[in-house]
């Protein structure tokens, strides 16, 4: 008796309650989610949706290709890229100083005592806080607010991307700076280097490829954000696409969608090339 009980004990997965618990939690999370989000895939197949959707889909062919439209498309595409690039450039102006100021590895006071002075810790904590708040507000919300403050146009889009992406890029750069080997920078600091000097010659050489490839990835995200911001009046592809959708001009919509795919493919190719260079 006792031996068989012991055997069944050893045979039982010691992590069984963890597994069961995980499954139950997942179910508890999933079922209300289905209900709250009114998850009814069959609405696509009721008659009204089928006609609306079908008509819209049918209008995708032929794709719009008139000269006027293609000029408009080119302008809107360039505008979208310009807003994204300008936004990311300004975001770097927030992210790089933020990541440097928040960097715990560059503390001179920690050099000798193993920990930072109160003022250093408070300052670095404050900078991290600002970055976190910036990245917590979706760019579209910044966009909605700026459109009201500075009016319609590219400015609102650029600012919105700059703020949100400044926070995101800053936080990631900070993590990268602190995760790489700190000894080269600290050895330089030990020899009386300035903080910036120790960073440039001790930290940056190790993490530059990682930073560049993250930046290219973020630029690709910024292009999508720039499209989205067009929906709230920041211009570019988003705005044009919204107009086309309002008019149910499927031929134009499909061209816009294909343009997105092309843009992302270009960004991908660029990122691959850069990564090979930096390796």
């Amino acid at each position, binding site marked *: 008796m006792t031996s068989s009980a012991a055997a069944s004990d050893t045979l039982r997965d010691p992590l069984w309650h963890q597994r069961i618990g995980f499954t139950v939690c997942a179910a508890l999370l999933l079922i209300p989610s289905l209900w709250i989000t009114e998850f009814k895939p069959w609405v696509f197949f009721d008659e009204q949706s089928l006609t609306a959707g079908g008509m819209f889909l049918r209008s995708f062919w032929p794709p719009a290709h008139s000269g006027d439209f293609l000029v408009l498309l080119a302008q809107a595409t360039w505008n979208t890229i310009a807003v994204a690039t300008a936004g990311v450039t300004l975001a770097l102006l927030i992210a790089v100083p933020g990541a440097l100021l928040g960097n715990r590895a560059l503390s001179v006071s920690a050099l000798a005592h193993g920990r930072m002075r109160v003022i250093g810790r408070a300052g670095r904590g404050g900078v991290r806080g600002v970055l976190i708040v910036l990245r917590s507000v979706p760019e579209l919300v910044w966009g909605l607010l700026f459109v009201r403050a500075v009016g319609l146009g590219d400015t609102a889009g650029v600012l919105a991307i700059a703020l949100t992406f400044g926070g995101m890029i800053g936080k990631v750069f900070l993590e990268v700076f602190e995760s790489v080997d700190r000894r080269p920078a600290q050895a330089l600091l030990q020899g009386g280097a300035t903080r910036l000097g120790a960073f440039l010659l001790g930290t940056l050489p190790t993490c530059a490829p990682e930073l560049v490839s993250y930046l290219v990835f973020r630029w690709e995200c910024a292009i999508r954000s720039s*499209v989205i911001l067009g*929906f709230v009046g920041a211009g570019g592809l988003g705005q044009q696409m919204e107009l086309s959708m309002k008019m149910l001009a499927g031929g134009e919509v499909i061209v816009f969608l294909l343009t997105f795919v092309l843009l992302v493919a270009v960004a991908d190719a660029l990122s691959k090339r850069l990564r090979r260079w930096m390796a």
Partner: protein
Amino acid sequence: MKETRANPVMPPPPAAAGPRRFALALIAFVALCFGTLRGEWSGLFSLESLRKMAELFAGFVPPATDGDFLQQVAVGFVETLAISVLGTLLAAFAGLAVALPAAGQGARRAVARLVLNALRAVPELVWAALLVIAAGLGPFPGTLALALHTTGVLGRLFADALENTPPDAALALRRNGGGAVAAFCYGTLPTALPQLLSYTLYRWENNIRAAAVLGVVGGGGLGQLLYFHLGLFHFNEAGSVLLAMLVLVACVDVTSDRLRLAVARA
């Protein structure tokens, strides 16, 4: 010191023309981007627009707190959370399904990658705007839109992770007569799973932000409330919604961070 070698000749630095040309091109590109922006940059930092902005932000204070409205915010809060959770979960499963051929070889790989890139290239908000046409307003098209875009993102990450997983364990199972599915479940998945989970959690952090704004095109959640009240210049109500968004995003960030640590440790 120098006497140790008879006047050695310093080698010239290796050619750096490629990177330098690239840097110049990049600077020119960025300048061009700034140059072609439309809009008032001088007006941006003028007193007038600063005053407007200050006024706008001051309008959010105090946030509206009446009972009925708070209930609406609470509903939007839960709805946004549900959209992000369900959208991410669906995308994780769909992403894994497409990642399998995308991590394989030949034509299947090319097709799967193309599908993933197309899904990823279209922003979630655009997916939502398209689906709203077919499925009507509400959180359901929003969820689906999130899931579609995220499938593209996660599918690609998953495919890369699966490709980078050492194939030894799966191969051993295959050689001993195991099926492809069994080899994947017991050979590849256990190794890659922590990475896949960590990607999914990262994406969830991203998606909570996206879910918060899907309402702008009629995708439900807090975004719908925000868009509605901003449109009517109800700034106190908008302030409450913004606050709820910040809290929600912070909660998800912290939870995801904890879970990711737990996954890394397990």
